């Protein structure tokens, strides 16, 4: 259709008024006031031009000023010139050595974050102690001395060197002694440095001083066989092990190595071969080793000597003069039976004794000689170099210093002002010494008495070497540049003695080039590089010779018996006179690492006490004295008094008390200061060695001081959580003790199974774990390893006391008691385990102990998952129970519903709350954090993740190498550090995997499987080789 529509904008247009026609000629109907604006008239307008410019100027100025605000610069590139070998996000490993154990140091972006055992290490074979695991944290300790100090104020190395050198020259000229007081230095290079220092200053003397020493054994070997050495023990070759107070699985000489050896005769493999060693422990206080013994007999310290004499008598068939029956009847009976067993196992037997008394150790040598242990279970030809301390040397040093004969005292890893039995004597003596130098990296008790503090490197900043056993040489290499202005002690000694080698690295290289590399068949630069990769060289061990003891024992027996009689004289609880045993506990040892929060918070394997030492007393004695729990008592012995809370310790011999050393530091740092009380002053120097026992009086004070224990209920109430059997039963039926006579537990599902036997498919991996209760010794190294790997917070004494420790893995320790009197035993276990029955017991010395590592069981039917309102905890297709921290709102329902109580809640913001200033409240210490694991905010639940970061890293590596993940390639942090190999992790889908095989064991059971939560961790029944005749 033809359209002729016309549109008009208004009537004006339609009508075409003249005004409109006129206006329509222009582009704009009304003129734009350009002229007005450009001319001065604009100034009177609404927004005049100048105002606009003013506003513009102000705006520019304001923005510029605002931009001048300093914005914090976050450096995200760690390196200006990136070292070739460092890839951000990828860990580098360096070999090194911790106290003679070959280790691997894991570094990320140039900072060491974890210490792991070197799998080829001769001692631990990859297993490491809690101390080694914790040592990395010491590197980031903010209490370290950051600069050399001269006369109490910060100084420089040049001034210190000038001062020390002039002083040393003057002292040498005056003919005064220069004493280097050090802990045992098993490093060949350090020994060489000291030797060269002594050559330069002929009046110099090296005093080897171990706070906890083995002088007794060394002197006894000198006496018996003419070899002043600490033997190398082979617990793996011993079928019958009898220990008199030697905590050989924990603190005695080489705990990790001995654990590995010991467990090799008791683990799954050994049991399958129907072989199991037998271990009998005679001791006063309950040690970790005692908790693992097949039979443990509580004896008083004063009975140890007579017991050994009687044992010797029984084995040799002679009677040493003065022998008499023990006061404890069952101990007497036990000695007779043990003698029989030992004699029957000649050549496969071992007797060890924890005493530091020469005479006692001579007698032990005689017994071992009768048993043919030399050359088999005891090796004197490839001796241990871990401890070489000579107790009389330090005593002589102090006497000489008091006389004014010592001109200079140089302390290397020695802190006598804390750990010598008379600190007053040390202080007095040092007042008369002209030059006092400490190499301590902390302003410790001795360093504060010194006029020069030349802070040593942390070992992760150091070069060096070590040799724990003769013929085994390990290298120490730095994993980080020195953090502070410190210098390695050896370098200082080299500088002060004007050595040709100006730095210790050159010295170490020279030393290895000339002597040590050749041992491993290496040489030159390539040899050195190989060494840095392997971490050690090893000479073929010398054949262990047999040694016969042919000395007269009459005098020895006399000494032992009279000493014991003196110790036991007049002891009676009623008279408040008891025998005191001073011991090292597994976490704190001699107290050198007491500023380490991981170790302070590591529960003692036996008492489960953290952050304190205490007076361990038999429960029956506590009752008799009418003491409350944690009542403070005053203990006086050898003229020294401490006030400590009492802990009721089952297994403690009646009329005895035990106190751990390593506490009561006053200058350790903010973590270790004033934790517990110092027990070193209870030592006494007698017959050339430090004695660890004494007669003590106790007084009640009426105060109480609560100890922080991670476990406060100590029996397992007859529950199937713990299953154990005896070796005799096991041999008859490998399933003994499992308690599944009615057959396997059925698994139930609400839904129809479509994926073979499970609802949710695990197409490739099904991560599970096997834990052998018969291998676990309860040492707790796994706890520290886990804390280091997973950034687990330290919460401090107060919070542990409120039962809020954060450990992802814990070791549950349960006591059970033999039936006696009115207390009734459980039907299932044959032991007294129920609270109400235990209350009826009178005698608590006959106790058996079981340790059970407990961590998230990664249940297939996880009860925590169903109750979380926000799905913050869910299951992975690989069988892991995972936490989505970001999603967690913290209702704690999951923790309530967890039957294993392994979930841990962040009650506070442990990272950023000044009230928890013992761990990570400063940026420097936070460098120890594992960057692969996020830290958790307050209000968030956390728990074992099965080191999911390790699993992911392992899978990724395999994927990049286009191969399947191999069994054993991924190791959990807890598993990796376990010397006993009690923990096996792996893929259950792989029928050839170690874990699958371990779970097939007849001994395997699942804790609380009757709940149908289908836990992913299988435990193996504990087996005790209780023997045929009851010993206890």
């Amino acid at each position, binding site marked *: 259709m033809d359209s002729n529509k016309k549109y008009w904008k208004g009537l004006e247009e339609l009508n075409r008024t003249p005004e409109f026609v006129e206006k329509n000629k222009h582009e704009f109907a009304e003129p734009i006031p350009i002229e007005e604006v450009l001319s001065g008239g604009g100034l009177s307008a609404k927004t005049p031009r100048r105002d606009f410019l003013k506003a513009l100027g102000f705006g520019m100025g304001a923005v510029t000023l605002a931009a001048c605000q300093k914005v914090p610069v976050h450096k995200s590139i760690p390196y200006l010139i990136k070292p070739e070998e460092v890839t951000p996000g990828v860990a580098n490993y360096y070999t090194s050595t911790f106290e003679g154990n070959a280790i691997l140091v894991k570094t990320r972006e140039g900072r060491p974050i974890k210490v792991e055992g070197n799998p080829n290490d001769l001692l631990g074979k990859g297993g490491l102690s809690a101390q080694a695991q914790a040592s990395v944290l010491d590197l980031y300790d903010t209490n370290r001395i950051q600069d050399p100090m001269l006369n109490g104020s910060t100084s420089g190395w040049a001034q210190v060197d000038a001062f020390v050198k002039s002083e040393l020259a003057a002292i040498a000229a005056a003919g005064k002694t220069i004493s280097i007081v050090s802990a045992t230095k098993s490093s060949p290079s350090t020994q060489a440095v000291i030797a060269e220092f002594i050559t330069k200053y002929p009046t110099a003397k090296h005093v080897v001083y171990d706070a906890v020493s083995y002088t007794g054994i060394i002197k006894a070997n000198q006496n018996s066989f003419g070899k002043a050495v600490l033997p190398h023990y082979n617990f793996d070759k011993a079928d019958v092990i009898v220990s008199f107070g030697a905590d050989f699985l924990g603190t005695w000489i080489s705990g990790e190595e001995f654990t590995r050896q010991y467990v090799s005769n008791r683990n799954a493999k050994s049991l399958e071969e129907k072989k199991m060693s037998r271990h009998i422990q005679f001791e006063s206080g309950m040690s970790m080793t005692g908790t693992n013994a097949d039979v443990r007999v509580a004896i008083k310290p004063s009975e140890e000597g007579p017991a050994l004499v009687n044992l010797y008598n029984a084995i040799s068939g002679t009677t040493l003069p003065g022998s008499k029956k023990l006061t404890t009847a069952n101990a007497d009976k036990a000695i007779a039976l043990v003698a029989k067993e030992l004699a029957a196992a000649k050549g496969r037997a071992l007797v060890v004794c924890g005493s530091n008394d020469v005479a006692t150790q001579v007698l032990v040598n005689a017994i071992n000689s009768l048993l043919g242990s030399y050359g088999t279970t005891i090796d004197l030809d490839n001796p241990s170099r871990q401890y070489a301390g000579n107790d009389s040397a330090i005593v002589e040093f102090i006497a000489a210093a008091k006389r004014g004969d010592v001109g200079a005292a140089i302390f290397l890893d020695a802190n006598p002002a804390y750990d010598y039995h008379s600190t007053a004597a040390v202080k007095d003596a040092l007042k008369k010494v002209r030059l006092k130098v400490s190499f301590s990296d902390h302003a410790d008790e001795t360093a504060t008495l010194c006029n020069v503090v030349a802070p040593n490197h942390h070992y992760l900043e150091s070069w060096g070497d070590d040799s724990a056993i003769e013929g085994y040489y390990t290298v120490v290499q730095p994993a980080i540049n020195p953090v502070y202005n410190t210098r390695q002690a050896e370098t200082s000694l080299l500088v002060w003695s004007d050595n040709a080698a100006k730095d210790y690295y050159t010295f170490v290289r020279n030393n290895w080039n000339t002597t040590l590399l050749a041992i491993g068949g290496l040489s030159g630069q390539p040899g050195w590089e190989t060494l840095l990769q392997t971490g050690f060289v090893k000479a073929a061990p010398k054949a262990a010779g047999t040694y016969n003891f042919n000395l007269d024992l009459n005098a020895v027996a006399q000494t032992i018996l009279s000493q014991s009689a003196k110790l036991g004289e007049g002891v009676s609880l009623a008279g408040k006179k008891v025998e005191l045993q001073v011991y090292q506990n597994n976490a704190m040892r001699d107290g050198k690492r007491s500023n380490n929060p991981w170790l302070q918070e590591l529960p003692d394997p036996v008492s489960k006490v953290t952050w304190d030492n205490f007076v361990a007393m038999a429960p029956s004695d506590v009752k008799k004295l009418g003491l409350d729990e944690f009542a403070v008592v005053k203990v006086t012995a050898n003229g020294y008094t401490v006030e400590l809370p009492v802990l009721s310790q089952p297994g403690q011999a009646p009329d005895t008390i035990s106190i751990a050393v390593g506490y009561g530091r006053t200058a350790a740092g903010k973590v270790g200061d004033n934790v517990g009380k110092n027990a070193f002053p209870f030592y006494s120097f007698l017959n050339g060695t430090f004695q660890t026992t004494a007669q003590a009086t106790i007084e009640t004070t009426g105060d109480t001081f609560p100890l922080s224990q991670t*476990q*406060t*209920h100590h*029996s*397992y*109430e007859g*529950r199937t*959580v713990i299953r154990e059997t005896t070796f005799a039963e096991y041999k008859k039926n490998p399933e003994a003790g499992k308690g599944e006579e009615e057959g396997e537990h059925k698994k139930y599902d609400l839904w129809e199974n479509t994926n073979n036997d499970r609802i949710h498919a695990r197409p490739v991996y099904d991560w599970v774990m096997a834990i052998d209760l018969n291998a676990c010794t309860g040492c707790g190294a796994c706890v520290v390893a886990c804390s280091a790997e997973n950034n687990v917070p330290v919460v401090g004494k107060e*919070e542990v006391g*409120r*039962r*809020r*420790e954060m450990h992802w893995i*814990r070791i*549950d*320790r*349960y006591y059970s008691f033999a039936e006696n009197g009115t207390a009734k035993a459980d039907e299932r276990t044959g032991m007294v385990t129920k609270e109400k029955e235990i209350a009826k017991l009178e005698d608590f010395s006959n106790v058996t102990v079981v340790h*059970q590592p*407990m961590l998230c069981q990664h249940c297939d039917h996880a*009860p925590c998952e*169903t*109750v*979380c*309102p*926000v*799905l913050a905890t869910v299951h992975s297709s690989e069988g892991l129970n995972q936490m989505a921290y970001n*999603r*967690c*709102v*913290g*209702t*704690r*329902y999951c*923790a*309530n*519903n967890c*039957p*294993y*109580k392994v*979930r*841990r*809640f*962040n*009650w*506070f*913001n442990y990272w950023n*709350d000044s009230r928890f200033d013992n761990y990570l409240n400063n940026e420097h210490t936070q460098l120890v954090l594992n960057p692969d694991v996020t830290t958790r*905010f*307050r*209000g*968030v*639940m956390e728990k074992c993740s099965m080191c999911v970061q390790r699993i992911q890293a392992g899978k990724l590596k395999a994927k990049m190498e286009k191969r399947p993940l191999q069994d054993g390639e991924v190791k959990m942090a807890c598993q990796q550090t376990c010397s006993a190999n009690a923990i096996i992790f792996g893929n259950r889908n792989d029928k050839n995997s170690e874990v699958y095989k371990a779970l097939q064991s007849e001994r395997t059971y699942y*804790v*609380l499987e009757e*709940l149908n*939560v289908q836990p992913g961790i299988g435990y193996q029944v504990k087996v005790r080789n209780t023997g045929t005749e009851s010993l206890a």
Partner: protein
Amino acid sequence: MTGKDMTYARITNEILLPVENKPNKAWWIGFIVSALGAMLWVVSISLTFWYGLGEWGLNKTVGWAWDITGFVWWVGIGHAGTLISAVLLVFSQNWRNSINRSAEAMTIFAVICAATYIVAHMGRPWLAYFTLPLPNQYGSLWVNWNSALMMDVFAISTYFSVSLLFWYTGLLPDIASIRDRAKGLRRRIYSILSFGWTGSLKTWQRFETVSLILAGISTPLVLSVHTIVSFDFATSLEPGWHTTIFPPYFVAGAIFSGFAMVQTLLLVTRKVLGLENYITMFHIESMNKIILLTGSIVGVAYITEFFIAWYSGVEYEQYAFINRATGPYWWAYWSMMSCNVISPQLFWSSKLRRNIPFSWALSIVVNIGMWFERFVIIVTSLHRDYIPSSWAMFYPTWVDVGVFIGSIGVFFTLFLLFIRVLPSVAIAEVKLLLKTASEQAKLKQIKEGHLEPAEVQYYKESLTKYDSVDMADYEKV
């Protein structure tokens, strides 16, 4: 059911007395004490929010204690309000009319107190919205409908909204009454609050309908809310929690504690506000009877639990119950038993039922007992469950106590403010109780002989049946 010589005008005058006048001394004392309590709550909660839940005495083993105890206690208390307003309405128990307003207010405030616990017990309360199924940037990230806590969120929020609605609907005619009598700003405020109530027949008709519908919705809530709260425990694995008896047992317990709380509040309110004519002995006695009944139900539940624990043959279950009665928390268990089961039995005596000081004291005892019940269920089950190594004791900190005492302060502050600004007795509904235009007028008519004897007879019978009028006056005529 009401006092003597009641008239419509008198009802309005008397009930609005506290609303329209300056508060008396008793109110001020009560208010100051309550406000101090509320301040304690603010301080305790602030500390908790500032530092973290570590301020409470909880630990790795006992993850819930005073918090969830307080939560369940408050939710339970709220139940009586709903029961009185909804269930009794549905069942035409018109004696509820004089107590339902306060009871409903109590419900609202109790649920508010309970809700504060839901948020406060979270480790990260600022993320409380995670518990709502909100669309989010994470795609299909949803809440867990399997979790009883999730059901709780919905149960409580539904309960709160319905209760609030019901309460407010009931308030409308009364607010209109205040409006009509007020002047100035007050009038304007009450005018807005009354939603333009006209009082026309149509309005009344709609009001009745809405009330009934809401009562119908609320009735299942009485059962469902505490059933779901009990799921928090019943659906878990914890020995002592994992019990199928929990839903009915919790509901009975809730009504039990709720009536006790109503009793506690009303006996005081009636005295302080002079409402003796509205909250009569009849009400007090009726509520005491309900307390006796529900207390006995709860008692049977306790015994049944014990029996089932033994009968199940499950050692953990058996231990949990033996531990309750004889373990370290035996005193809590026996406090619960004597407060909840033994003491209400005294109400078999009608003398004690009608004794006001005694009833009040017993209502407090029941409230204490019901707090202990939740404490016993939560803490004694958790503190010793499966793995003995983790057994622990729970010790409250002052913050725990502060939050609880403080929540009582918050509750009473709200309640006292409520009785100052809104009628504490449902005026309109009480007026319904005076079934005739005026009972007095009728009596006068009878006395003056204006009525047929048959009519009088019928009237008398209906009075005996439905009302609590003193019949002595009618004997003579």
